[in-house]
Every structure is written in C-alpha cells, then in structure tokens.
C-alpha cells in the first residue's frame, strides 16, 4: 500500500531476525509509515514516552506484550508523567482498580529499558537533544519545546508509536522531520507588547493561547520580542499553551529560537501573512482561560504544569521573600520531576515554599490524576495548560493569573488580582 524502502537491518527487524518484540514494534512503525505516505524510515537518537500514563487495559496489554516478547529500547528513552506519585504514596486518590494497573504500566516501561524520569519536561534533564537531531518525542508540550527551543526534530508522536520508535530506533521520514515542513506559515507581530509585560510566565502562557488559536496546526513566527526577555521557562509556557489551544508543534521566535537565527535573511521568512498581537488580546486570553470570577474564595493553587524547573523554584523562592504562610484553606501544589526536585532542594530553593505550606508532587501532575481533595473546587494557576484541561478533567473552576497574583491569592485565601501586570 506504500512504496516503503527498508534497509537490510530494518527488514531484519520486521521479519523477526531481531526478536519477536522488535518485530511487533517494527510492524507498527511500518504501518505508520504507510498511513503517512513515507517512502523510508530514518534513525532517531532518543525517545520520550507518553504511553506510560494509564488510559485502560489496552495500553497495559501493549507494553506487557512488548516486554513479554523480549523487546528493549534501542536509544536513550525517557518517560513522561505516570498516573501515580511513587515518592509520595497516598497522595494520588486513584481507586485500586486503576492504581494497580497504572503501577504495572510503569513497571512494564522500566522493563523495556526506559529511564524512570516520570516528567513531562524531559528538556529540563541533563541529557537533551541538540539542534538538528531526529528524535521521537510524545507529549505535546515536550514536542513543541524540542522542535522550537532545541531545534531537534520530532513529529507529534503519541501512544503506542513512541515506544515502538524507541525499540526500533526508527521513525517514518515524514512531517516535521523534513526541513521543508519546518518553515513558518504565518507571522505574529508582538512588537506592541511592552517588555515589562513579558516579565511574567503567565503572560507568555496567555500569548501561547493567542498563538495557538491563531495558528491551529500551522507554524507561527513570532517577531518583535526582545531576546533578553525570553528564557526557557517562558518559552515552555508559550509552547505548552499553544499546543493546548491549538495544535502547535513548532514555533519560531525571531532572534531567539535556533532555526529562526539560522534563517535570518531568508526571503520566505519575511513574506508571511502577518497579524499583530496586542496587550488587549492577552488580557482577553487571560479571561477566557478563567472560569471563576475575581475575588472568588480560593481552595488551591497549581504550579509546575509543565513541571517546574530549578530556575522556577528559584523565582518562586525569591517571590516568597517577605510573604507570610499560605492561607490554611488554600493548598499550593507544585508539580515537578524527581531530578529537578533533588537539584532544587540541594540548592535550598524548595524549602521557602514548603515552610509556607506548599505540597510537592512528582512523577505525575495535578490535572491528570485525582490528587486534589473534593473540597478543592476553585483553583488558581499561572499555567495555561492547567487552565485549559483541569476544568474538563477535574470539574474544578479555574482562575488564570500571574505567579505573584497566585501567591497573593494563596496568602489571602481568595482571588487577588493585580491588573497592573496585564497592561
């Protein structure tokens, strides 16, 4: 059904010469190549697996079948968040009918040789892909970060195919692996946004909401942003939200991201359909990302979606100086990875939040598995992705605001707005 050319080694994998588990994985990769119309496969240097999050028996059957057939990953492979926090047992309120297979799923992926990183932000780990590397990453925020900020090349991989790519070390030569599919399709002019406004991660998340809605699955080029205000945490917030409100898997920022720098002077990049982004559009995005009104009583604050970085723990510690303990009726949740938590704790950056009552979640995330208590009904967050998904997943009301708005609110026990941060 497709004219797919395989190398001798790829043919041996498909025909069972590298074991039945590898053959099963190769059948999936070859089938995907047919779906995408690819003519050949290409090697990858690494993989990030999202299939380790439990969505039912089929996902567990798939991983256990591969492991039972003796498959193992052929490239360095990291694991996305799971449904459980293994470092803080009892935190996740999953019923045993789901918790037991969710744990078995985690064990199956470790048996396949993947690293127990359990994070949605593998780009915050010490080892990460470089410019131009072909990789197979799943998880939408990781995909958009790898493509945009690191300049590595990954399609929008997801369940089943992520692990099959890791086992075979191959993906179809298609989509965002091809340079011609990485060229921007529209320009979003951000020169009207004051640099002071862009000092808050949440403002970048609001920008991401606008970018996602404007771009759909296209590739936006953001222009007019002072490179000095763009850091990885802010680009993370932008990408994660743009991948939620739209299907953005790659964006470019002029003067900031590597492929934009390499394309400087390319006429195609300066002749795109353009639209302007205004401060008013960011305020509108802020309001659209909120389902509860100002001054609502607040039950919780959710930070670290995607997972908090060491630098974000540092920013939080600095922001907490001079602030009192959090209100006893408002729980501050911070999601991060084990690896980042260990580094941040070593640097003394976690303790200021913990001393004020914050609770740390690792291995998983507060919007994908039941962690919040039934009394936690209104939640504030600077994360556009949390604001986008939590009302649907958890049935909570959400208020979207900057980190300092969130901290003011957590101390007061009710929503406190600072409109000065949004002008």
């Amino acid at each position, binding site marked *: 059904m497709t004219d797919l050319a395989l190398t001798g080694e790829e043919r041996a994998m498909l025909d069972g010469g590298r074991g039945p588990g590898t053959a099963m994985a190769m059948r999936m990769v070859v089938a995907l190549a047919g779906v995408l119309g690819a003519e050949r496969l290409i090697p990858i240097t690494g993989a990030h697996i999202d299939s380790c999050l439990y969505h*039912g028996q089929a996902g567990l059957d798939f991983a256990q079948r591969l492991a039972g057939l003796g498959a193992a990953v052929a490239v360095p492979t990291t694991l996305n968040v799971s449904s459980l926090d293994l470092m803080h047992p009892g935190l996740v309120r999953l019923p045993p009918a789901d918790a037991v297979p969710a744990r078995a799923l985690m064990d199956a992926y470790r048996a396949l040789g993947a690293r127990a990183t359990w994070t949605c932000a593998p780009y915050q780990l010490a080892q990460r892909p470089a410019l131009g590397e072909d990789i197979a990453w799943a998880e939408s925020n990781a995909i958009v970060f790898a493509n945009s900020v690191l300049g590595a090349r990954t399609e929008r991989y997801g369940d089943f195919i992520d692990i099959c790519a890791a086992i075979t070390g191959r993906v179809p030569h298609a989509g965002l692996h091809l340079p011609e599919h990485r060229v921007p399709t529209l320009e979003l002019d951000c020169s009207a946004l004051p640099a002071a406004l862009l000092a808050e991660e949440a403002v970048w998340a609001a920008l991401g909401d606008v970018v996602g809605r404007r771009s759909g699955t296209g590739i936006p080029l953001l222009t007019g942003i002072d490179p000095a205000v763009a850091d990885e945490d802010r680009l993370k917030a932008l990408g994660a939200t743009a991948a939620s409100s739209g299907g953005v898997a790659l964006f470019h920022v002029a003067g900031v991201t590597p492929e934009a720098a390499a394309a400087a002077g390319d006429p195609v990049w300066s002749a795109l359909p353009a639209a302007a982004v205004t401060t008013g559009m960011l305020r509108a995005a802020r309001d659209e990302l909120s389902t509860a009104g100002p001054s609502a009583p607040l039950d919780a604050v959710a930070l670290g979606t995607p997972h908090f970085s060491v630098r974000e723990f540092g920013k939080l510690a600095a922001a907490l100086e001079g602030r009192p303990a959090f209100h006893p009726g408002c729980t501050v949740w911070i999601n991060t990875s084990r690896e980042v938590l260990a580094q941040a704790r070593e640097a003394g950056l976690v303790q200021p939040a913990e001393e004020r009552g914050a609770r740390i979640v690792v291995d998983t995330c507060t919007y994908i598995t039941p962690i919040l208590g039934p009394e936690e009904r209104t939640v504030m967050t600077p994360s556009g992705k949390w604001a986008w998904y939590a009302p649907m997943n958890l049935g909570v009301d959400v208020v979207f605001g900057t980190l300092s708005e969130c901290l003011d609110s957590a101390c007061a026990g009710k929503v406190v707005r600072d409109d000065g941060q949004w002008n």
Partner: protein
Amino acid sequence: MTDSGTEGGPADFAGRTLCPGGGSGALLVLSEPLSFWGGTDRKTGLIIDAHHPQHGGSLAGRVLVMDASRGSSSSSSVLAEQIRAGVGPAAVLLTARDAIVALGALAAAELYGTHVPVVLLDAGASSRLGRRNGVTATVRAGADGRAGVVLDQAPAAGLPPRSREPA
C-alpha cells in the same frame, strides 16, 4: 475503483486504506472534530465532551465519519481500549491522514486481532456521506491499499447515481 462485488451498491465510495479491516454499522457523521481522550468515555464509548454537538451519542458499533481527530495523542489509547472493550466504532472514515486514530486501530489489531478499518476519503466523498447520517454502511479496507464503502439504501434524490473516486 468500485465495489462491484457488493450487492446493490448504488452509493459506492472508494478510498484508501489507512488500517486494513472490515466492519459495518450505522453512519455517525461528526459535525465537529472530537478528541477521544477527554471527549469520549473509554468504558462506554459515549461522547462526553459537553461542548460537542453530539454529546451523549455513542461510538459503539458505528461507522464514524470525521475529518480528523483533535487534541491529545492519548486518544490512540482510548480508541484501542474502546475497541478492546467492544464499545469502539465499527469503522472510521477520515479526510486526513490522522496518525492518532490509525495507531489506536493498529494497536487493537496487533493485540486483539480486531481489525477496525480506517479509511481515507477525499473531501467530496466525505461530504456526500455526511448527508447520510444513520444509514448502515459496510466498510472494507484491503491490505493492498484499496478501500470501499457501501451503503445499504439507495442514495437520496439529487445525488449522482454512482460515485467513482480515485483509489
């Protein structure tokens, strides 16, 4: 191609196989894109996305007609789980090469031997099928890449008597 071997197929649509298999059921034409993850219940196959116009409908045993899925790649797992549990669609007809839908069907075929066909149609065929919501359709998707859809009723007045689509 045409499905000359099928009985009384006045409305006969050809497409391209994304996942081989066969199935039949009543057409369920989605009027908006749907994310299987978050938008459908993995245990029942019901559409639970409150914002979706077909909220409350069931995917179980239906021939789904949609342009493409939307949102999370976790949708592949949810679709495979619905097929495993017997509450998934009988076939899926798309107008885009949607890897998320295809991988869910491919994984279920690999694990359980249940071959739910996924077929790529051109926009014209999809649009004509889109007016036949509820009509029973039989879908055959061959491993050679050729796929066909046969409806069990005569087409409505005003439609061409027989559609011929490039295979």
